[in-house]
C-alpha cells in the first residue's frame, strides 16, 4: 500500500510536470511568439484595401458638369476559390457584358490567385453581381470618370487612367486637388474570403470641385465653328480660343479634330494633344502687331508715319516681297498693319534695330512659358540677338524665324486688348467654391499705345483690309490675319504647300471684351488667314457677343 501511494505521488508529479510544460509552452506562444503569430494571423485574415476617393467634378463657369466620377467596381476572381467555373461564368457573363466562354477561360486559370474579370463596371451592375454571392468573386469599389458632354473641351480636360490618376490635360495638371485622399479600409476575412468585419480605418476625402473659366456654350460654339472649318478646308487640325482680355480668363479653348473624352484611346496623339499649349508654329503676319507695338511705344514710329515702300526689300542675302505683288506705294504704319505689308513691317523692324526688337519680343512673353495652368506647355523658340544672321531682321518683324504657341499669342494680344497689361491666362476659376486669385500681370505698353494699336487693327476689317469680308452688324471689330509658311524640317526650307492660316482679333474694338484666336494647321483648299480663319473669328464673335450681352460698340 505504501508503494502504491508513493507511485500515485509519482504519477501526480508526472502530470503536474506535463501541465507545467504545457503552460510554459502556452506562455511562450502567447508572448514571445505572439507577435509573429499575430502577424501571421493578420496576413491571412486581414486585408487593407484602399478606399478610392471620389474624384472632384469639373464644371464650367455656369456649373455645367464637364467631368464627373461615378461609382464603379472592379470585378476580380480568385480562380481556385471558384467552385464551378462554367456555371459561374454563365451567370456573370451577361452582367459583365462578355461572352461566357471568355469568362470561363479566365476562371479556369488555376495557376493564378487573381484575375480581373472587368474594370470599372458601373455600380448598378456590380451590385447585381454582389447579390449573386458567388464564391471567389470579389468586387473592388472605385470610380469611373465620365464626361457627360463627350467631345466638349476634351483636349483641355484630358483623361484619367484606370488607376484613378490624371493622365493628360487638367485631369493631369490638377490631379492633386481633383484626386482627393484615398481612404483605407480594414476587412477581416474568413478562410473562404468572405468578409467578417469591415471597418474604415481612414475615411476617403473626396477631391475638390473644379470650376473652370470655360463657358460651355461658347466652347460648344467654338467647336462647331472649328468643325465647319475642318469640313470646308480639310486641315490637319485647328485650334481656337476665346479669352476675356480684362481678366485673362479663357472662355473657350478648342481643338479640332474632336476627341471623345470617354474614349480617349481611340484618338491619334495629334488629336488628343491640347495644341493651344503644345503646338509651336511660326506666327507670320499676326506677329506684325508686336513689331508695330514696340516701335510705337519706343516712339520710333507713329500710327500715321508714312513709309515709301518699294515692291521688295533686300536684307542681307534675302529679298522680302509682299504676298500679293504690287508696285511701289506709300503706306502709313496703320496701313502697313491693315494690309499686312511685309516690306513695311521689315522696314519698321529695321528702324527699331535688332536689340530693341528682341527686347520687345521678349517683353511680350515670347520664348518662355506663359504659366497658364495647363500641362505640356511648350516654350517656343526665340533666337538670342547674338545668333542673329544678317537676314534675321528680314524675317522676324513679319513673324518668321520665331516659333510660338497659340497661348503665347493669346497672352500677348491680351495685353494689346486690355490696355497694355501682360498677364498669364488661366482656366481654373474656383476650387471647391473658393475663387482662385487672378495671376498678377505687368504693364508692357502704355494705355495709349494699346489704344492706338487697336485702332490700327480695325483696319483689317475696313475696305482693303485683309479681313474686309467679315463683319458683325453693330460691332466694330479689330484683328490681324496671318498666313505663314510652315518650316519644313526635312528640307530646311519654308514649305511651299503647308501653311498656317490664323486670325487674332477682338471685339468690340474700342473696349474689347473678347479676344478670339483661330489657328488652322495646313488648310487644303485655301491658305489665307483672311479667308480661312477670319470668318471663323466672325462666327464665334457673332455668337459670343450677344450671348454675353455685350453692348454693341
Amino acid at each position, binding site marked *: 500500500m505504501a508503494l502504491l501511494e508513493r507511485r500515485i505521488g509519482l504519477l501526480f508529479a508526472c502530470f503536474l510536470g506535463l501541465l507545467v510544460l504545457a503552460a510554459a*509552452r502556452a506562455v511562450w506562444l502567447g*508572448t514571445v511568439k505572439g507577435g509573429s503569430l499575430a502577424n501571421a494571423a493578420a496576413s491571412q485574415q486581414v486585408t487593407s484595401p484602399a478606399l478610392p476617393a471620389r474624384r472632384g467634378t469639373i464644371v464650367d463657369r455656369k456649373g455645367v458638369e464637364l467631368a464627373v466620377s461615378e461609382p464603379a467596381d472592379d470585378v476580380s476572381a480568385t480562380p481556385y476559390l471558384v467552385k464551378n467555373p462554367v456555371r459561374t461564368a454563365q451567370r456573370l457573363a451577361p452582367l459583365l457584358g462578355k461572352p461566357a466562354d471568355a469568362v470561363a477561360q479566365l476562371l479556369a486559370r488555376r495557376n493564378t490567385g487573381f484575375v480581373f474579370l472587368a474594370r470599372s463596371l458601373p455600380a448598378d451592375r456590380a451590385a447585381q453581381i454582389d447579390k449573386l454571392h458567388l464564391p471567389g468573386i470579389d468586387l473592388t469599389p472605385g470610380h469611373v470618370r465620365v464626361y457627360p458632354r463627350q467631345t466638349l473641351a476634351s483636349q483641355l480636360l484630358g483623361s484619367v487612367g484606370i488607376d484613378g490618376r490624371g493622365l493628360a490635360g487638367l485631369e493631369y495638371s490638377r490631379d492633386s486637388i481633383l484626386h482627393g485622399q484615398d481612404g483605407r479600409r480594414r476587412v477581416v476575412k474568413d478562410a473562404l474570403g468572405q468578409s467578417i468585419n469591415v471597418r474604415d480605418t481612414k475615411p476617403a476625402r473626396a477631391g475638390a470641385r473644379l470650376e473652370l473659366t470655360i463657358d460651355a456654350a461658347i466652347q460648344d460654339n467654338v467647336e462647331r465653328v472649328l468643325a465647319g472649318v475642318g469640313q470646308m478646308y480639310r486641315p490637319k487640325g485647328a485650334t481656337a480660343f476665346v479669352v476675356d482680355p480684362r481678366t485673362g480668363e479663357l472662355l473657350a479653348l478648342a481643338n479640332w479634330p474632336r476627341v471623345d473624352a470617354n474614349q480617349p484611346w481611340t484618338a491619334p496623339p495629334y488629336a488628343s494633344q491640347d495644341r493651344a499649349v503644345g503646338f509651336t508654329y511660326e506666327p507670320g503676319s499676326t506677329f506684325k502687331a508686336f513689331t508695330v507695338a514696340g516701335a510705337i511705344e519706343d516712339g520710333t514710329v507713329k500710327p500715321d508715319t508714312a513709309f515709301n515702300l518699294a515692291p521688295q526689300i533686300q536684307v542681307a542675302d534675302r529679298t522680302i516681297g509682299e504676298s500679293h505683288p504690287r508696285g511701289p506705294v506709300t503706306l502709313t504704319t496703320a496701313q502697313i498693319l491693315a494690309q499686312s505689308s511685309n516690306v513695311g513691317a521689315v522696314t519698321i523692324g529695321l528702324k527699331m534695330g535688332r536689340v530693341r526688337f528682341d527686347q520687345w519680343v521678349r517683353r511680350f512673353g515670347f520664348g518662355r512659358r506663359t504659366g497658364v495652368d495647363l500641362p505640356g506647355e511648350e516654350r517656343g523658340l526665340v533666337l538670342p540677338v547674338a545668333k542673329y544672321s544678317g537676314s534675321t531682321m528680314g524675317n522676324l518683324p513679319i513673324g518668321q524665324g520665331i516659333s510660338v504657341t497659340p497661348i503665347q499669342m493669346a497672352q500677348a494680344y491680351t495685353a494689346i486688348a486690355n490696355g497694355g497689361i501682360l498677364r498669364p491666362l488661366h482656366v481654373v476659376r474656383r476650387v471647391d467654391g473658393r475663387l482662385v486669385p487672378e495671376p498678377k500681370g505687368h504693364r508692357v505698353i502704355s494705355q495709349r499705345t494699346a489704344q492706338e494699336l487697336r485702332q490700327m487693327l480695325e483696319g483689317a476689317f475696313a475696305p482693303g483690309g485683309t479681313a474686309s469680308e467679315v463683319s458683325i452688324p453693330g460691332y466694330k471689330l479689330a484683328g490681324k490675319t496671318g498666313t505663314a509658311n510652315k518650316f519644313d524640317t526635312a528640307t530646311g526650307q519654308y514649305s511651299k504647300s503647308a501653311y498656317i492660316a490664323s486670325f487674332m482679333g477682338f471685339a468690340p474694338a474700342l473696349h474689347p471684351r473678347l479676344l478670339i484666336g483661330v489657328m488652322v494647321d495646313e488648310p487644303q483648299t485655301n491658305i489665307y488667314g483672311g479667308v480661312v480663319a477670319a470668318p471663323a473669328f466672325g462666327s464665334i464673335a457673332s455668337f459670343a457677343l450677344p450671348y454675353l450681352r455685350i453692348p454693341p460698340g
Partner: protein
Amino acid sequence: MPRAAAANAKRPRSRTVAQPLEYNILLTATLCLLAFGAIMVYSASSARTLLQGQGDGSSFLVRYVAYGAIGFVAMHVIARRGLDGVLRLTGPLLAFALVCLVLVKLPGLGVTVNGARRWLGAGPLQFQPSEVAKLALVLYAAKILAHRPGRLKHPRQVTPLLLVTGLAVLLVASQPDLGTALVICFTLCALLIAAGLPMRYLLIGAGAAAVLVLLYALSASYRRARLTTFINPWAHAGDAGFQAVQGQIALGSGGLFGRGLGQSVQKVFYLPEAHTDFILAIIGEELGVAGVMAVLFLYGLVAYAGLRVARRASGAYAKLLAAGITSLILSQACLNVFTVLGLAPLTGVPLPFISYGSTNLTVLLAGMGLLLNVANGGSAHLRAVAPRNAKRSRHGADDRDRRGRDSGARRAGAGRSRRAAG
C-alpha cells in the same frame, strides 16, 4: 425491493454529512470544464455552421448539452451506486467493447468519417467503441491489478491484462485512431506505475512501445507526414502542417488575454476541427494565454483531487480505479494540449469535457462518476468478493446493502481524516 427502498431511504440522511474536499474539488472542476466546454463549443462552431447554412448555429451546442446531460446523469448515478456493481459489470463491459471494436471493422456496420472507421450505430445513437473500450480497459486493469496477490514483480504476472490491452490497442490503432490508442497505452502505463511494477520493466516497456509507435507512425504516408511536419510545421503550412500551423496562429494571435469571447477569426474555416480536437486553440485566440492557463489549472485540480482520492481510498481496487480514471483524463488532456501547442505530433484526441465529442464526453463523465464514487468513500471488497463474485451475483441486494453500510462508515472515516489533516 423493500430493502432497496430502505437503502434509498437512508441516502438523504447520509448526504447531510459534508462531502470530502476532493469530491467537491472534482465536482467543481468538472462543472467548470463543462460550462467552459459548452461556451467554447458554441463559440467555435456557431459561425461556421451558420455560414454553411446548418440551422441557427446552435446545433453543436445543443448536441453537446444533450450528451453532456446524459453523461451528467450517468455520472450522478454511478457516483451514488456502489463499486461492486462496477466490478461485476467490468467483464461484460470489456467484452462488449471488444466485440464492438471488432464489429466496427466490418464493412457495412462501421461508419467511416474522414477516412477512419470509428463509429458504430446510427443517428443519435452512434458511438465510438474505442471510447467505451478506454474506460472498460481502465476498469479491467484496476480489477486485475488489485486482484493479483502479493507484489507485482514482473510483467509476466499481468500477462492477460497486457494481452487484452494489446489487442484493444491494435484494434483501435488500426481504425485508425492513434490518439485513443496512445491514451490507452499511457493510462495502462500509469496504472502499472501505480500498481508498483518495477521501474526497469516500465522503462523497457516504454522503450518497446515507443519503437512500436514509431513503426506504426511510419507505416502510413499520412502519419509519416504528420511526424515530419511536427518537427517543422511551418515548412508544410500549406498542406500537412496546415492544422498545426493554424492552431498555433490562433493561439498566438490571442496574446495574453485574447481577442475576446466569440471574437476568434481562425474558427471561421481557417482551423479545421475548431470545436473538437483544436478547441484549445480557439480558447487561446479568444481568451488568450489566461484562458489556456485556466483550462490547465482545472486539469491540474482534477489531477490533484483525483490522485488524492486514490491515495485516500480504501483498498487497492478503489485506489487503482481512482488513479486509473484520473490518469485516463489527464493522459487525454495532456495529449490534446501538447498536440495543439505543437509539443506533440497531430494525433487527434478531444480535450476532455471541453471538446465536442459525444461518446468521449459521456464516457468521461461516467468515469468521473466512478472517481466521485471513490471520493465519496466507495470501495469494493475485492478479495473477499471477487472469488465468489460469479456465484453470488444473484445476491446483489445483499451486497448492495452491505456496501451501503460500508460506504457510510468510510464516509465518516474520510471526514475524520480530513479534520485530522486540517
